C-alpha cells in the first residue's frame, strides 16, 4: 500500500504549474546521496483516493497539478491514483517523479501529464545540472512525450 509523509505546494518541480507535491514513503531506489532518506522507510498515512479527495477539497483550484513524488514500490498503485484524478477531477494535471531508469511495461504512460524518470546519480547531478541523467517529459496534445529537462537549465540572469 502506498503511504505519504507530507505534501507541499511547489513551483520548481513542474515548469509552469502550481503543484501539490505528495511525498511518498517506502522508496526502494535508495540512491546514494539521496536528499530525502526519510522517505526510504515505510512510514506515514495511507495514500488512497480518500486522501486525494481531501487534498483537492483543501486546495481546490488554487493548484493546477498533483505530483506523486516516488511510489516506485507500487507503480501500479500510482497509476491507478493518476487515473482516478483524471477521471474525477479532469481540471488537474498529474505528474510522477519516479526514480527508476524507465517506467515498468504495465504502466499506462498516458495517465500522466508529466513524468520524471531516472535515479539520482551524484556525479551527474540533479535535474538542474546540465549533465544530469534524469529526464522530465511532458505529454503533448497528440499523446507524445516531449523532453523538457532543458527548462531546469535556464541560467540567464533575469
Amino acid at each position: 500500500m502506498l503511504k505519504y509523509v507530507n505534501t507541499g505546494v511547489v513551483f520548481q518541480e513542474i515548469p509552469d504549474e502550481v503543484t501539490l507535491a505528495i511525498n511518498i514513503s517506502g522508496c526502494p531506489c535508495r540512491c546514494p546521496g539521496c536528499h530525502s532518506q526519510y522517505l526510504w522507510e515505510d512510514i506515514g498515512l495511507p495514500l488512497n483516493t480518500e486522501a486525494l479527495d481531501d487534498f483537492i477539497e483543501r486546495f481546490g483550484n488554487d493548484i493546477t497539478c498533483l505530483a506523486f513524488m516516488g511510489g516506485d514500490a507500487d507503480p501500479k498503485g500510482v497509476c491507478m491514483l493518476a487515473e482516478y484524478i483524471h477521471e474525477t477531477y479532469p481540471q488537474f494535471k498529474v505528474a510522477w517523479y519516479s526514480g527508476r531508469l524507465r517506467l515498468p511495461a504495465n504502466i499506462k504512460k498516458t495517465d500522466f501529464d508529466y513524468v520524471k524518470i531516472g535515479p539520482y546519480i551524484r556525479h551527474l547531478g540533479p535535474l538542474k545540472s546540465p549533465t544530469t541523467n534524469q529526464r522530465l517529459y511532458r505529454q503533448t496534445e497528440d499523446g507524445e512525450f516531449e523532453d523538457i529537462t532543458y527548462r531546469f537549465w535556464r541560467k540567464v540572469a533575469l
Partner: protein
Amino acid sequence: MEIKNFTITKRDGSKDRFSLDKIMNAITKAFESVDEPADLGTISKIISHLDIKDDIKVEDIQNQVEVALMREGYYKVAKSFILYRQEHTEDRETLEKMMFLSEYMESMNAATGSKYDANANVEHKNIATLIGELPKSNFIRLNRRLLTERIKKMYGKQLADEYIDKLTHHFIYKNDETSLANYCASITMYPWLIGGTLSIGGNSTAPTNLKSFCGGFVNMVFMVSSMLSGACATPEFLMYMNYFLGKEYGQDYYKRANEQADLSLKKRTLDKIITDYFEQIVYTLNQPTGARNYQAVFWNIAYYDKYYFQSIFGEFYFPDGSQPDWDGLSWLQKRFMKWFNKERTKTLLTFPVETMALLVDENGECKDKEWGEFTAEMYSEGHSFFTYMSDNADSLSSCCRLRNEITDNGFSYTLGAGGVSTGSKSVLTINLNRCIQYAVNNKMDYLEYLGEVIDLCHKVQMAYNENLKELQDHGMLPLFDAGYININRQYLTIGINGLVEAAEFMGLKITPNDEYKAFVQGILGLIEKYNKQYRTKEVMFNCEMIPAENVGVKHAKWDREDGYFVPRDCYNSYFYVVEDDSLSVIDKFKLHGAPYIEHLTGGSALHMNLEEHLSKEQYLHLLKVAAMEGCNYFTFNIPNTVCNKCGHIDKRYLHECPECHSKDVDYMTRIIGYLKRVSNFSQARQEEAARRFYAHAEK
C-alpha cells in the same frame, strides 16, 4: 521625621542609600546663594516637613523641599532652588544629546543608531542625518503636549492622562511622533497642472510642455513631500506625461518611438528621449533630501488596466479640453515598467513604489487580459511591484499600503479626478499583544478591554484632527487649501500590531482555521465598529495592519522587558508567522484572503516571499489564486543579490556573485513597501529578514 535606613531611587533608576547630609547641603547652598542666613534650626524645620518613604525618587524629595521652603516663607530661597534644579535639568539634557551623538557615530548604520524612529530609508549616516536625528525627542514632547492639551479641552484631563499612561506603558504607539506634518497622501496633480506651484508657496507656473512637466514634477513632489511625514503618491504621473508627450509628438507618438526625434549629435530616438526623462525623474527623486532628514521622498505611482483607467479617468478633461488617451498610456506604462526593471539591475532604486490596479471577474480572471498577462510577465522578469485586485473599481490602492474606497469618481474642473485622492492624516497603533495579555492576566474580557483602548484611540485621533484643523485655519497647510489633498478623503488611521502574537498567546494555531479566523474577525470587527461610530461628515477612520520594521521591534522589546509572552523579536505585519515554513504559498494567500482582510479597511499588503522566480504561467495562476481567495493586495518578494565587491546586481537570490564570484554579497528585499539593502535595516530587523522563510522547491 525619623531617619531610618532608606533607599532612594536615582534618575537613572538605580538605588542609593538615603543621605540626610546631601539634602541639608543642598538647602544650605540655596540659602547661601541668596545671602540668607541659615542656622541649623531653620534647616531642621524645613527638613521636618519632608515625608521620606523608602525608594522615593530624587525628584520627589526636591519637590518637597521646594514646598517646604515656601511654607516657611523663604520664597527667595525657593526660587533660587528651583532655578538651580532647572539649570541642572537642561545640563543633563545636553549631556544626553552628547551621549546620543557619540553613540550614533559609533552605531552600525543609520537605522540602528536612530533612537526614536529607526528607518531603513536612510542609507548613510552623516552630519545631515545626525542633524535630523537630534531634535526628534523635542518633537515627541511637543507633539504629546499639543495633543494632550487638546484632549483636555475636548474630553477632560482624565482622558489626557489615560492617553499618556497607555502610551508610556506601550499599550498604544503613536506613529511618526517625531514629525509635525500629517502623515501621507495620494495627491491630485490637477491644481498644479492649472496653476503651477504658486499656491503651495513655490514660484513655478503651470507646466506647458514635456520639459517643464518633467522638471516641474520633480520640484512639485519635493515640495509636497516636505509637508508630509510619510509617502506622497502621484497616481496620475504617467497619465499626465502621456498627455504632454501627445501634445509634443502627436497622440500616436508611441507608434513612432524608434524614429529620430532629436537634432543633436546624439540623434536620439523618441524612445530614448522618453527614457531619458524617466531617468531624470527617477534618479532625482531617489536622492536623499535635505528637508526630509536626508531621506529620499517616499514616492508612489500607480498603473491601471483598461477598466480601472475608464472608471477613474473616464470623465477626466485636461485644460485644453482633451481627454486622456488609453492606448498611449497603456504603452507608456509598459515602457516605464520595462525601463525601471532594467534600470534596477544597474542601481538600487527604491522609488517609485509601484502598484498595479487590476479588475477581475467572478472567476478570478483578469478582465483586461492584456494587462493581466503583462503583470505576470513583469513578475517573471523579476520586477518587484504591488498588485491591487478588485472585482469592482470601487476601491484603489494608490499609496504604498493604503486602500481607499472610491466614493467620488467624478471629475471637477478645479480638483481633477476624485478617485485618486486619499491618504492618512495620522496613525495611532494598538499593541494588540500587550492589550490582550493584560486583559487576560487581569481576568477581564479581552474584547471589552480592547473596546476601551479602541475608544480612547478614536478620541485621541479626533483631538489630532482638531489640531490639524487649527493648523489649516492659520494657513499652515497649503496642500489642503490648494486642493492637492482633499481633506475629506483623508483617513484617521487605527494601526494594529502584534495580532499574530496575541493569537499565539491565546493558544491558537496560525493556519487557515476557524478559531483563528474568528479571533481575527472579532478584533478587526470591533475596530471597524468604532470606526463607523466615530465617523462624521468630516472625519473618516480606517484600520491598517502597519508595516512594522520599527514598531514591531520596539513592541517585542518592551513587552519582553515587562514580562509578557513574546514569541519573536519583531512582531509580524502579516496574518501568518513569517518564519513558519510549514505554511504553503496557498495557505498564505488564504490567510490574507477575504475573511481575514474584510475589516481591514486601511489595507495590508501580503509580501509573498519566494526564494526563486516563477514562470509567467505560474504567476498568472497565482494572480487567479489571489483573486479567488480575496487577497486583494500583494507583492512577490524574491531577494535580489548585490555584490559588495564588484557592485553587480542580480535579480536572483544567490550566495555568490555570478560576476566576480565573491561571497561577500548583500540582499535587497522588501520589508515594508520599500526595496532596500538588508544591511540598511536596523539590527533587529535584519535578524527578521534572515529568519524569513522563502518558499522554495523541496527537491
